[in-house]
């Protein structure tokens, strides 16, 4: 065997185990989802029948589909900017000279280490009508207790609070890493020029954090479509699907109603959203969000 061939063979052999698993559990299912979405769900002795785009027509006519899509949009809009803003504040605090920084860092980061399922249980108690900490606290100011998770107006908001609580500390880490890369001489120069701290943040620090913000943003959007553990524990998507998100609806259709063909059509929407996001990230990265 010549040396030229050796490189190809060795490269492929090293890659092979990972490639087989990736193909089986990422690429194959993604393609199979598209294929399945064009058929009926096989039931008993009735085999799957090709029905073209009928599942997608049903989907467009399905009010629950539109509701979970709207919910998911609000969920992303409501959690991501606030989590990122809090993450930046936390990172600035922990990176600054405030007394008791180790405790502050611990307080901000601990929710990230906890399983979402445990977090959801803790917050479930927090929201308990009348008895939970939230109602007790509001009771001090004379507000009547209310069923936070059981009402259409507040259920999704309650889930959003949980998500912000869990994610802000996680994003803080990335900002902290980025802040530590910024040269202190920039701050000194600005101080000599007499620039205010807010001005310095707005014109220097924030632009320098842009690549981090992009990275965090993409991860945050993926997470807002990926992480639904708290819904399973806290609301089951209710009341009347008011707190259901796209993946939770897929989970319900696939594993409660066992309608795998319709679940496949819904999954295609999710894949399109994630794919579009990847494309967007690629295009922005091509234009380079760097200031160096």
């Amino acid at each position, binding site marked *: 065997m010549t040396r030229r061939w050796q490189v190809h063979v060795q490269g492929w052999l090293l890659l092979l185990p990972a490639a087989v698993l990736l193909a089986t559990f990422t690429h194959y299912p993604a393609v199979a989802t598209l294929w*399945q979405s064009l058929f009926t769900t096989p039931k008993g002795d009735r085999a799957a029948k090709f029905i073209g785009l009928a599942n997608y027509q049903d989907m467009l006519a399905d009010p629950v589909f539109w509701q979970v899509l709207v919910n998911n949009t609000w969920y992303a809009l409501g959690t991501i900017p606030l989590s990122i803003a809090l993450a930046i504040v936390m990172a600035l605090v922990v990176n600054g000279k405030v007394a008791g920084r180790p405790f502050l860092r611990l307080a901000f980061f601990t929710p990230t280490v906890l399983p979402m399922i445990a977090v959801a249980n803790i917050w479930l108690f927090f929201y308990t009508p009348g008895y939970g900490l939230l109602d007790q606290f509001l009771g001090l100011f004379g507000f009547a207790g209310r069923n936070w998770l059981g009402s259409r107006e507040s259920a999704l908001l309650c889930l959003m609070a949980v998500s912000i609580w869990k994610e802000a500390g996680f994003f803080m*880490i990335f900002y902290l890493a980025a802040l530590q890369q910024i040269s202190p001489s920039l701050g000194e120069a600005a101080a000599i020029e007499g620039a205010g701290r807010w001005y310095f943040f707005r014109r220097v620090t924030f632009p320098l954090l842009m690549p981090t913000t992009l990275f965090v943003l993409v991860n945050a959007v993926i997470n807002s479509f990926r992480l639904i553990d708290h819904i399973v524990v806290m609301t089951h998507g209710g009341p009347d699907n008011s707190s259901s998100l796209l993946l939770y609806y897929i989970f319900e259709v696939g594993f409660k109603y066992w309608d795998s063909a319709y679940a496949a059509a819904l999954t295609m929407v999710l894949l399109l959203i994630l794919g579009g996001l990847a494309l967007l990230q690629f295009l922005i990265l091509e234009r380079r969000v760097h200031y160096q």
Partner: protein
Amino acid sequence: MSAAAITRGIETVGAWTLALLWILPLAFAVWTAFHPGAYAAHFVPTAPLTLANFAKAWSAAPFARYFLNTVLLVSMVLAAQLVLSVLAAYAFARFAFAGRGIMFALVLVQLMIVPDVLLVENYGTMSSLGLLDTITAIGLPYMASAFGIFLLRQTFKSVPRELDEAARVEGAGPLAILWRVYVPLARPVLVAFGLVSVSFHWNNFLWPLIVTNSVETRPVTVGLEVFASTDQGVDWSIITAATLMTSAPLLLAFLVFQRQFVQSFMRAGIR
């Protein structure tokens, strides 16, 4: 000067308020878990401390088995991820094989299309492989990690070629070079990836919920959900104790190795 001092004071108060607000839900859970049920939501400083809630939770559900399942799952996934990612990353970093570019792009697809969203099809695959309700089925979709491959490829590419050449001159084959030169140099990255992976899979819930159906396979997260939703009604003290119990190993590890954890998450996030 005093204006600056006032600003600093306000900032300190603000920072501490935010931190206390952030730790409050957890502090509340700790209070509830360590006090008798009657004090679950009554904050009296003289309330007696107790471990009874933990004892009740521990005996009310097979948590020992759940912990064993999680430990098996997490170590299996981590071992597979490390081996597969190291091999694949080495191939991408140092072997100019045909199709390397397109294969790398195909690997990166998994960064976006995470296994968590392909529930229905992967359930079908596990079913046809006869793996439903096994710990293997929980771990299998995650064993090839695009994230790990990406991270290690970056690291391997930064290894000086001279070290590689020196080992080759001594007659070492590709695997020997990988093991003796690349892996030792990548140790901090391997540790960082390991910590992130362990905390991800310790906490993972939805996929395990779907593919498992028995005490022998359920990880603690699913066990906790089954316990909290069906067995207990509304005894919050016991549920909270169980909740803290299931998070405790990770939480304790975090408190002890805080610096490593934070640095690992930092390192794993920087691309």
